[in-house]
Every structure is written in C-alpha cells, then in structure tokens.
C-alpha cells in the first residue's frame, strides 16, 4: 500500500532519527517533514513501532496515512513536485 508519513517533531535529533527510519524503510522524502512510498502492512506496522519508540508522545506528532492507488492517481501536484512513478516503485532503476 502507499503510505504518507507526516510529522511535526520538536527536537532536531529526534526528527533526524525519524527521517532516517523512514528512509531505511524504503520510502521517499517528498517534503521536509513528509515521506511517501510503497510498503506492505508489516512494514507499515514496523515503521510505526520504530517511530513510536523514538518520539516524545506528549510533544511530537506523527501521522501515517495509507492511501489506495485510485486516490493516489487523483493527487494533483503543483510547483516543485515529486516524481509520482518513483514513489510508487514503478521506476525500478535510475539511469542518469
């Protein structure tokens, strides 16, 4: 499934650790505090557990939004947008 991870985290070190956890899970950074990518149910659960262990639940907030492919196809991107094919794992290799 496609999952958006959106966060608002107070402390820099924690924020960096959460960003690293997202990247290690294999999802893409689409904005400073927004990640998006294709994960299976176990991977989403694992990422949520990892993040829950890192953050201060009284101050920080993290949202994990699953999204179906049909809804994602209707997403409109304006300005400096991310590559839709890359985040949906449709691009298997990058030749630069």
């Amino acid at each position: 499934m496609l999952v958006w991870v959106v966060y608002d985290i107070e402390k820099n070190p924690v924020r960096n650790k959460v960003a690293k956890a997202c990247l290690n899970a294999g999802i893409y950074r689409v904005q400073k505090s927004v990640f998006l990518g294709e994960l299976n149910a176990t991977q989403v659960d694992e990422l949520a557990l990892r993040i829950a262990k890192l953050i201060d639940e009284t101050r920080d907030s993290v949202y994990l939004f699953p999204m179906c492919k049909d809804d994602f196809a209707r997403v409109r991107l304006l300005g400096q947008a991310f590559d839709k094919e890359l985040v949906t794992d449709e691009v298997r290799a990058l030749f630069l």
Partner: protein
Amino acid sequence: MKSEPSFSETPNVSITITQVMAYLFCPRFTYFEECLGIPEHEETRFKVLMGREVHARKVKMNPDYLRKRINVVRKAVSVYLASPELQLRGIVDEVLWLADGTLAPLEYKFAEYRPFVFATHRTQLCLQALLIAEAFRASVMRGYLVYVRSKNFLREVAFRPADFAKARNSVQEVLRIIQTGYFPQQRGTPAQCADCCYRNLCV
C-alpha cells in the same frame, strides 16, 4: 529384508515448537531453513527484537503475580519442556495451575488483539499443552494468549480434539520435510509471500 524405520519412528530426533510455527506459516520455510540451511535472520526484524524484549521483561516483572480472574493457583515461568515421544521441545512462557486441577499454557504475543485466533497461535498452544500434559501428567483443556499491544488483553483458547490431532500431524510433516528433503508446496497468501524472507528464492 527389514525395511527402513519411518521418520516418525526415528529415535532421538526432535524439533522445536518454533520450527512447527514456521512450517505453518509456509512449508517452504521449513525446506529453505532446515534442508538448505539458509538462515531466516529473524534477529534483524525489529518486531522480533521488540517481542524478545517484552518476553525478557515479562519473565522478570512481578514473578509472584497470579491471574485470579482465571483462577490461577500457581505458575511457573519460562519452562523448558521436551518429549522424546512427541519428538518435540520448546519453552512455555508460563505454565498455569488452575483451581479446577487442570494446567494451561500461557503465551505472550507482541501483537494486537484480533477477533480471531491465528492457526499458528492455536497450534503453538496445543503443542505446549501436549508437552505440559506429558511432563506434569495432568489434563490440559485450554490455553491463554496475552496480546501485549492491546493492553495485555487476555484471550482463552479452548482446545478441541481435532486441534491436537492437527498439531501432532504438523510435527510429523516438519520431520518428513527435514528427513526426506522434499520440496513442499507453498501455502502463503500473497500478503505473507510479500513479507517472507525467502521470497527471492521461492519459485
């Protein structure tokens, strides 16, 4: 000419309950892990590590606590049991002595409560029940699951005779794969296969 002993008659061979659980996930898991010797590397999975942490904590935490709601009169924690007859061994998180004179296994699961019991969990409890019944010479009619991620929700699992037969059958199937080395049919659902560590090897 005397025929070869069958795998079920081979002495001094035993498997762990974990191996049976892996078989229930998918028989190919047993083949890759036991016949080809390709390790699962479950220690690299975050949820496995968290589960182990929880188990270690539960062993130490409040050792004298008895669950009165289910009429526990005595308990033993982290009990290693083995049975040459069942060709099985394993560790039971808790063995409970109940007020009605029966015993019951209790297993902590680092999982969220679902309104059904997974077949793997039911079989795990059944196998533990068989080991307990043999070791303590007592009747075991039910087991308990504690879902750690749902505020330690306690769920009772009543055993049916068919459950024990299925559990014994699973043990023999694991032994058959290990001893004959045949390549079994896969059983996983697409979601399980996507999450399986052997997905790149499995055809």
